[in-house]
């Protein structure tokens, strides 16, 4: 019968061994010598798991096959050093036959090599995709550290928007400057001073953002916030004024606190700079006025411009400071001290 296996399996290039119940190899086909790299040893008499260590641990399965409880099993694409030392692949199939346990060895090097190449390319792409995802996340994190979240989101959604240019739009601008900070900090260690400054600026940024504004920029010990940009906010004047009052109230007991100016008006809003480097910001008369108004304000006070006051109407308690000529301007404007405001944040 085993001659029949030799003829049938040998014709297909399949080698085989036949084992007894103790897994000792009793019969070896002539093809086996070409499929496994066993030098100077007789395969006959070897224990199956010595010839195929891949069978080690699977003795229970072999026993099931021997007893007819399992039809058979296979181990696909076993990488082995072939004859001559090159890497090859064989598939091992096990079945019970009358003579014992038949283990068939089929050379699948060609299919295995092709599958390996495909798997290699797929895995390399997989790794690349994961590395790109990590790089993208890092860039996003960096971008959010330098650009307000809303602006970053818009830019990522529409990269075309990240070009110099913009449009005129009504905005409310908030300037907050730490009065006397330089004198207060002049005897501090630089690291201590930076820590103290960052702490105060962080409070300002949190309050601006909590009221729907964005941080336009830090200017030394001052911050500039924008409302109604880049997302539309119908109540930008109210939110800008609320943020300003919240900011001075948050630091009312501090030795050093902000003087704040708020102004509403049209400004040029968009990306200022060049293709290589730009800032999302607002420029124009309304912005300059907000800065001048802030410069007039005392520490712990909020001064607002005429247009902001009009938009606040009854919702704010203000005291007129009169019609003033702001520094560097020909025209006069009415300036108000903001005393109280409707607290609800919409």
């Amino acid at each position, binding site marked *: 019968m085993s001659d029949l296996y030799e003829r049938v399996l040998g014709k297909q290039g399949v080698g085989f061994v036949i084992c007894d119940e103790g897994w000792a190899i009793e019969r070896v086909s002539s093809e086996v010598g070409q499929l496994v790299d066993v030098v100077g040893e007789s395969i006959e008499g070897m224990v199956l798991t010595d010839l195929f*260590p*891949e069978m*080690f*641990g*699977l*003795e*229970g*399965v072999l026993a099931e096959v021997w007893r007819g409880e399992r039809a058979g*099993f296979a*181990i*696909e*694409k*076993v*990488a*082995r050093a072939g004859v001559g030392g090159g890497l090859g*692949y064989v598939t091992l199939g096990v079945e019970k036959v009358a003579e014992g346990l038949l283990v068939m060895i089929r050379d699948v090097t060609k299919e*295995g090599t092709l*599958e*390996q190449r495909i*798997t*290699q390319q797929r*895995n*390399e792409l*997989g*790794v690349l995709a*994961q*590395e790109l*995802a*990590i790089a993208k996340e890092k860039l996003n994190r960096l971008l959010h550290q330098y650009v307000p979240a809303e602006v970053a989101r818009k830019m990522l959604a529409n990269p075309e928007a990240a070009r110099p240019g913009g449009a005129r739009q009504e905005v409310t601008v908030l300037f907050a400057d730490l009065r006397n900070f330089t004198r207060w900090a002049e005897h501090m260690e630089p690291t201590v001073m930076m820590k103290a400054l960052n702490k105060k600026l962080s409070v300002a940024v949190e309050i601006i953002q909590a009221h729907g504004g964005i941080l336009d920029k830090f200017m030394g010990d001052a911050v500039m916030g924008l409302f109604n940009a880049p997302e539309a906010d119908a109540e930008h004047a109210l939110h800008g004024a609320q943020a300003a009052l919240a900011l001075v109230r948050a630091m009312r007991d501090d030795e050093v606190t902000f003087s704040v100016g708020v102004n509403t008006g049209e400004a040029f809003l968009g990306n200022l700079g060049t293709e290589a480097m730009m800032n999302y910001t607002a420029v124009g008369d309304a912005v300059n006025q907000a800065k001048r108004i802030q410069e007039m304000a005392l520490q712990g006070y909020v001064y607002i411009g005429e247009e902001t006051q009009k938009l606040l109407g009854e919702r704010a308690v203000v005291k007129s400071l009169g019609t003033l000529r702001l520094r560097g301007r020909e025209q006069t404007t009415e300036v108000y001290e903001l005393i109280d405001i409707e607290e609800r944040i919409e």
Partner: protein
Amino acid sequence: MGVIQKKVCLLGDFSVGKTSLIRRFVEGSFDDSYISTIGVKVSRKRVVDGGDEVNLMIWDLAGGDDFRGAQSGYLLGTVGALIVCDLTRPDTLGALWDYSEQLRGINREARIVFAGNKVDLVAERQISDSQLQAVGDELGGPVIYTSAKTGDNVEEAFFYLAQKELVWGD
């Protein structure tokens, strides 16, 4: 002195360094180029555990979807496994649960070590000690940080799998 044979497996997603860890342990070498494993490759290494020699039959199995689910029969007879993630790729951490579950489904008592590989790539690291430790704590296995490139902790990981008794941390 007796010789004990033990079947241990390397499990983990593709390209986490399973083949490199085996090569470092068995041959003491490292090759930076990545060659994907398909199917099965068994390497042997004899180590000494107390008075006994242990012949480790180390199964290198394809990672990723090629292995998960389809070929868990290959894990029959496995007494221990090194389940590996790549510390520079966070996606490889989640797969530790799948491989652990798969092995425990075959052998509840299997000894498992969770290896955070490529620990030498400090600047690219994405998985923290506490993240990997949380996995080890939850899945019930010690955690070790390895580098197939430098050889850091590679022998320790395999020796743990070769030991007769649990002595990790002693």
